[in-house]
Structure formats: C-alpha cells, structure tokens
C-alpha cells in the first residue's frame, strides 16, 4: 500500500491567513475633498499609524506620527503651521517631505537636519480626486507613476459612485480572484468559466476576460482600472484597496460611465453594469463581489503550495508577479 502524503493532510495546521509583508506601491489614503487646508488627522495604514495633513497652500503630507526629537505623537496636539506640521511638544516643524524646517530654540542646528529628512513621510500626490501615498518598506522613491484615467480626469463622465468595504485579508489574496477565472462559475454562478487572457508587464497586469466584456489593468497592488462593456455601453470601475494591517484591508471603488441623456436606454444599461459589478443586478445570473467573495476572503488560509488543476487560472504566475511588491522579502517561503 502506498504511504499517505501526510503533508497534504496536515499542512493547513501550520498555514497562516496572511503571511505577507505590506506591499510596495501607490495606495489610496483618503478622498481629496475630505481633507481641508490646515487640517490634520491620524490614519491607520500600512500596519501603523500616520498623520495626514494639508498645508495652508494645499499640499498633502503623510508622516510617521512620532517626532524624531523626543517622540511626541504629532497627531495628538500637533498643528499645521503654514507649509509645515508642528510637533506639540517643543514646536519643531517639518515640511511635507519630512525635513525639519524650524527648531525654535538652540543656537546650533544638528547637522543631520541639514543633510536629510529626519521625519519619515511618504511621497504623496492627488489624482482622480483621491489622495495617494507611495509605500516602500525601506523608504525608496516611487518606481512608477500613477496612470492617466480619462474617465476620471476629463469631462463627459458622470460623478463617480463610490463604495467601500472592509475585508479581513491581505491585498494579494483579494486581487488573486482577478486571475481565478474558475471561481466565477462556481462562487459567482456565471454560466461558464469565462475565457480570459492575462499578461504581466513590469508592475502592470493586463486582464481581458470573456472576449472584451471585462478589460483592465492592475497598476501594482493599489490600483485597478477595469472597463465593463455590454451591448456597446462601457462602465469603468477603479478599485483602490488599502492595506490597513497585514490581515486587514479596505476595498474602495469608484464607478463611472459616459454621460447619457436622462431616460435613455444607454443610461439604463450603464447603471445596470455598475449594479452588477457590486452586487446582484436584475436579469443577471451571476453575482457581483459583494454578495459572494467576502465569505471566502474572510475565512480562508493562504496555501503557498496550492493544489491546482487544469482549468484553473494563472494563479502561480500571478503570485510570481506579485512578489516584486515585497521589496527585499521576495524569498519568504510562506508567500
């Protein structure tokens, strides 16, 4: 009799739900309109707390909370002063790049203050009405730019509808469903496993599903832009999931489409496509992510050595591609 493969049977005991580091990339922080000039607040992101602020002239900053001087939490009692954020403890001031610009006492400036930023801040920018920050575990500068998204940056498109959902898993796990075509039939109830094409190019993943029904790109772990086309009408979804902690993410999405006259057939169709992306739309036989994906994400464990069969999507190529975002930790056996 053949000996049984015990690893197969027992491995799940030692598996983790989310063995991944926080990935590198551009990530959504907050909506531009919800941060006023002179405002400052604490946000949880990338497995730690940060202080988000907007200077009087409108520049956004996202900094580590703890003052390099004596460790006070700048987000508790600190203030925006002109173009700087000021620590409450001794009024040391920093610009949005983390350079110390003012120490209101002391005749000598510590040399490192002139040499480099001393407060960790993340490169930040505003695009599509959203605030973005670049996360890299070793504070490296951005290695790619956010793409142009005409549907969100040019006139002729409706004000985006937005949604946000907390998920108890990591981004790699969420995005893996994008290349798991078989689950669309069984979990979502699609009529069949849709044909799909996936290509990987640097930090970008291209997906073309069901012969042009869903076409889009992922730009690193923090931004996906997908176009859904039915009967000649296209709706655009951008998803911008945030890694809150290693095991907790916040999914965020904006949906838009071209402006169509009120009461037109085109408008009805465009709205239906958007409804279908999210949940269940009338007359559709498959379910959007909201109604079915969470139960899996919130309870699964990650198998670094999954048992795949023919008919599964390019899961392993996706994972190999995703490793580039674990800067310096690509060799972890658990991922």
């Amino acid at each position: 009799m053949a000996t049984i493969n015990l690893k197969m049977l027992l491995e799940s005991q030692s598996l983790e739900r989310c063995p991944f580091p926080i990935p590198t990339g551009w990530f959504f922080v907050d909506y531009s309109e919800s941060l006023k000039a002179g405002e400052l607040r604490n946000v949880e992101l990338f497995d730690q707390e940060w202080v988000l602020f907007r200077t009087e002239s409108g520049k956004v900053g996202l900094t580590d909370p703890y003052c390099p001087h004596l460790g006070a939490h700048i987000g508790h009692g600190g203030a925006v002063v002109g173009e700087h954020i000021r620590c409450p403890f001794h009024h040391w001031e920093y610009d949005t790049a983390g350079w110390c610009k003012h120490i209101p006492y002391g005749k000598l400036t510590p040399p490192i203050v002139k040499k480099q930023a001393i407060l960790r801040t993340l490169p930040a920018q505003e695009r599509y009405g959203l605030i973005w920050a670049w996360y890299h575990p070793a504070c490296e500068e951005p290695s790619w730019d956010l793409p142009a998204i005409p549907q969100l940056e040019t006139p002729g498109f409706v004000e985006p509808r937005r949604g946000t959902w907390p998920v108890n898993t990591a981004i790699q796990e969420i995005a893996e469903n994008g290349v798991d075509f078989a689950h669309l039939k069984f979990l979502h109830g699609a009529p069949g496993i849709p044909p799909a094409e996936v290509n990987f190019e640097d930090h970008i993943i291209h997906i073309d599903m069901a012969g042009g029904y869903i076409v889009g790109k992922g730009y690193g772990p923090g931004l996906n832009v997908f176009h859904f086309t039915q009967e000649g009408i296209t709706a655009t979804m951008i998803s911008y999931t945030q890694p809150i902690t290693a095991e907790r993410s916040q999914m965020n999405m904006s949906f838009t489409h071209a402006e169509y006259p009120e009461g037109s057939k085109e408008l009805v169709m465009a709205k239906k496509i958007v409804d279908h992306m999210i949940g269940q739309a009338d007359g559709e036989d498959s379910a959007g992510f909201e109604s079915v994906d969470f139960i899996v994400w919130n309870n699964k464990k990650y198998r670094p050595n999954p048992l795949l069969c023919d008919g599964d999507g390019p899961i392993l190529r996706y994972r190999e591609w995703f490793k580039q975002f674990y800067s310096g930790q690509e060799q972890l056996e658990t991922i």
Partner: protein
Amino acid sequence: MPDVRVTGRDGQEETLQGGEGRPLMELLRDAGTGVDGTCGGMCSCGTCHVYVANEWIDRLPPRSEDETLMLEALAEVVELRPGSRLSCQIELSEALQGLAVEVAPDA
C-alpha cells in the same frame, strides 16, 4: 588609568583620571568643566567641543563625517582650531595617557 590634562574655560589647568572605555565627554562633564554632552554622542548638539593639544591631533582617530559637520556648524558661533574635536567621539584608553585638551567656549 589614563590621565587627561584639562585646561578649563577659566584657564585653570587640572588633571582628570579614569574613564577608560568611556568617552572623554563624560569625564569632562562629570568633572564640572562646563562640557554638557547634551545629545549623548550623536554629534547633534556641539556642547562637548574641545581643543586637543597640537601634539595629540594626529594620535587620535580621525573625525567622522557627522563630527565634521557638527564642527562646521559650530564654526559659525565659536572659534575652530586644527585640534577642534567633539569629546564625545574620543574614547579614553591607556593609549591616550597624558592627553591634553582645552575646553572650548560655549556656543
């Protein structure tokens, strides 16, 4: 135990003993010479500036970049000399027996 010959800001000379394995800054600070050593050896405060006697300059390990930059910042407020050093960067050892330094003026 190394002896260090110290000239104070008032011009008075004294000999300090001990401190082997510790920075010269601590010996001077604890002896009440006016050296503060506020930053504890980070080269960020400039309060432990001394002038090392000429014959000792080449017998000390060279200045690090951080020390050099702090001394450059000090130059804006006090006199710098070839023997200018941050005493927090000089570790006392038998090899420095007889080291002679003058405490530099307050910034």
